């Protein structure tokens, strides 16, 4: 790969993740959700693999925690799903309920739906990165 494409690929990583984050946290009331955010973020990772190469990417990014990220994300999503049952609400009830006031953090609204999307985001990112890493590593190993 040329110097140019390497630089562009590196530079693109941060904006890609920014877009992913925006898509995720606005997903409850606008276009987007955790899954598309995860896919966008892992596309950024895939670009690194393609352009920069496997070894440097694994040095650059914490790829080896992909498995843990996926499991942690699934755990978050499941907790958000099942915890309302503890006080007698049906599963997947989100708080605050419709009509109740929402706590703001800047323009960010704190809803359990956002937390659920964070879980899905981590799960998708972890799984996708793990699969990309698996296939990329196998390509490196093949000539031996």
């Amino acid at each position: 790969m040329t110097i140019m494409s390497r630089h562009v690929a590196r530079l693109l990583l941060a904006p890609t993740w920014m877009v992913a984050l925006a898509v995720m946290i606005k997903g409850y009331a606008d276009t987007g959700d955790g899954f598309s955010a995860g896919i966008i973020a892992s596309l950024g990772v895939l670009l690194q693999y393609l352009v920069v190469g496997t070894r440097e990417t694994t040095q650059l990014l914490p790829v080896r925690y992909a498995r843990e990220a996926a499991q942690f994300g699934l755990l978050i999503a499941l907790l958000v799903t099942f915890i309302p049952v503890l006080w007698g609400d049906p599963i997947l009830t989100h708080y605050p309920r419709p009509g109740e006031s929402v706590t703001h953090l800047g323009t960010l609204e704190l809803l359990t739906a956002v937390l659920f999307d964070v879980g899905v985001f981590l799960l998708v990112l972890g799984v996708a990165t793990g699969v990309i890493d698996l296939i990329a590593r196998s390509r490196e190993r093949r000539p031996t």
Partner: protein
Amino acid sequence: MTLVLAFSIAVMFGAGAYLLLKHDLIRVVAGMVLISNAANLFIMSAGLSKGSAAIYPLPEDGSVSDPLVQAMTLTAIVISFGVSALLLSLVYRVYQTHRSVDIEQLAVAEEVETRQREEAVAEAEEEVPVAEEEEMALAERGANPVPVSVSESEDR
């Protein structure tokens, strides 16, 4: 619009089905991906309606498109994403163990291994003294076990 959708679903499904019949496992996986996406398009077309996005606040004229099919399609996309990843890694493992992704060659490997197993069973049975004539004859021929049991399993 409906006609265009129907046509593209038909083309995708047909192309996928054609690829499924190929000998190369990679092509089979590609066919599977095409067919799943044809199904996704089909879900979209099942609730095709004109209107703005079904996101609060609703527009004045009140016509919104059906959000349910979009939610279903998204879920189906997620599932087919996971399944394609699984299929690819499965094919990769098959390639690692067999050094081939050709269905014909895998079938040959299957046949050879089945034959070996049946030979093992047949040999074990030959060691047992049995009274029945058929089995006696088999035991006599068993003096030269390997070629005989090969022809045995071919008879079956």
